[in-house]
């Protein structure tokens, strides 16, 4: 019979094999996107497998940026995402702070309302809100996102409240004793120290709009729409035939910001995921 440590080595090796196998399988689609974005069109539109482009067509990336007004759509996406994220973070942080630190009549009842809102399935809003915005004549613009941002997000209110509750109370108490009003305490003491929560919230909201396709398709026109909507249909050459590989290059460029942000802010993003998954 094997020794205990040999058994453990065997067990760990098996675990590693499975994990590495799964990791490879999960990465293949991403790698394939990168590889195919560098192929010539006929290397994609072919019957046999082309493992590596001969040679890599770096000009696909040039085409991706010039074939359509790529920069305009990047700007649209960035502007819309920033507007929404900025507004949502501000209003959610304010509400989160109020729920965490400002005693008032009805506070806990109102917070239960916030939590209850989290349980409502999102699909139920789509059609009524569309009718609402249509009646207000603000479709085909960024205004829906302004209103959504001003309305704050229950999830982010929850995040901020949790964060502020864990915040040491001494700083605020000291300021209060010095006679500072709550708005000043909030702006000058609490917010500057809340950078992790603010950053996480901003990034989650920003990436949410960057990656959104449903709302952007519903509410925006071809002129002011985001990169997401533009990239769903492929590029076309002057004769009207689809150009898949430059479209893939554009998709890679489109994917870069979320992936980069993810690598830089992993810790915070995972923390947000854990909060949403374990708080129940």
């Amino acid at each position, binding site marked *: 019979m094997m020794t205990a440590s040999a058994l453990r080595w065997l067990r760990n090796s098996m675990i590693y094999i499975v994990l590495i196998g799964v990791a490879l399988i999960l990465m293949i689609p991403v790698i394939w996107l990168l590889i195919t974005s560098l192929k010539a069109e006929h290397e994609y539109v072919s019957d046999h497998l082309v493992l590596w482009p001969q040679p890599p067509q770096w000009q696909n990336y040039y085409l991706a940026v010039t074939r359509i007004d790529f920069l305009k759509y990047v700007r649209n996406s960035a502007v819309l995402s920033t507007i929404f994220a900025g507004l949502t973070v501000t209003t959610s942080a304010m509400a989160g702070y109020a729920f965490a630190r400002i005693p008032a009549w009805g506070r806990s009842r109102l917070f239960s309302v916030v939590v209850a809102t989290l349980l409502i399935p999102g699909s139920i809003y789509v059609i009524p809100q569309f009718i609402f915005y249509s009646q207000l004549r603000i479709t085909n613009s960024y205004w829906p996102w302004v209103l959504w941002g001003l309305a704050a997000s229950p999830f982010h209110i929850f995040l901020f409240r949790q964060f502020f509750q864990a915040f040491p109370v001494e700083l605020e108490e000291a300021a209060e004793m010095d006679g500072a009003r709550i708005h000043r305490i909030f702006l000058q003491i609490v917010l500057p120290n809340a950078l992790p929560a603010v950053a996480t919230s901003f990034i989650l909201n920003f990436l949410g709009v960057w990656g959104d396709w*449903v709302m952007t398709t519903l509410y925006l026109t071809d002129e002011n729409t985001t990169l997401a909507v533009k990239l769903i249909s492929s590029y076309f050459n002057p004769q009207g035939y689809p150009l898949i590989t430059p479209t893939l290059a554009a998709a*890679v460029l489109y994917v870069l910001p979320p992936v980069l942000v993810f690598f830089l802010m992993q810790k915070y993003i995972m923390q947000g995921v854990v909060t949403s998954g374990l708080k129940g």
Partner: protein
Amino acid sequence: MSTRALTPHPTTNLTPVRRSCRRWLGSRRGQKTLTFYLFILPWLLGFIALTVIPLSGGFALSFTNYDGLNLTTMKFLGAGNYTRIFNDADALFSLRRVLLWSALNVPIWLCTSFVLAWLLNHSIRGRGIFRTIFYLPSVIPLVAVTWIGRIMLHQQYGVVNQVINLVLPGTSIKWLSEYALVSLTGVAVWTGIGSGVVIFLAGLQNIPVELEEAALIDGANKWQSLRRVTIPLMTPVIFYQLVLSIVSAMQYFALPMLLSPTSGGNGGVLATPPVRAVYLFMIHAFRQAFGFQRYGYATALTWFLVLFMLVLTAFVFWSSSKWVHSESPEK
């Protein structure tokens, strides 16, 4: 000399009620309450305008034949829209599809992410790197996932078929049309596995090591420790994720539309139906609204689905007393 004693107090001439209101407003508590409501005012207004009004308005609309344009020609239909659902073959078909889809997706997602999280929970090196790799697909935006799906699962040019052709030449599986449900499940699990692993891993790491060690000392082997100690302790997390994933799967809508060969043009995308195999319920509802302008019927369909999900969730909650171990004092 100070004139303060000579000027009457500002509230002297007010009625008693007004005076106590003013006094309260000037007090610490009054100030705080005012500030509280000021701070939550954006959320509160937004809640009324974008939650209460749409929900109640949508509910009211579901009893009419509103077509998006004429409020004057709108008719009150009673429960007409709701009975129509049961006569609508497409609605019932899409309900069956979404149930099948959920029955496929939820267990696969739950099991694979739990198993992977459990594997990661062992004391191995590189746990963080694995977690990052597993989570990466979740970060990829929907549109990019669509393109990845298209280039991998294309009948002729997709890499999956081309690789299979190396072994079995002549294979030309129509992943995106004939096997749409299978493809959808694969893509959805691929994107979803990351969050599951992260959440379950966090839950597993919350379990004190001493409990598992105690079980091992008492003579249990690894397998029994998993079954009798780890999993029961994880049931609250599993339960919560089960409910969330069911609700999420039942509303699934975007990916099936995008992956279908019938998509690809914008404009009418929200109205163009996908392949029949993945014609899910919400797709049918949105098609009624944005394709046929039947907003009344569409909201009725949506509320129907919400009710259906409520019943499902209630059932899961009811069953939870049988298998979920709530936080009980130590045995």
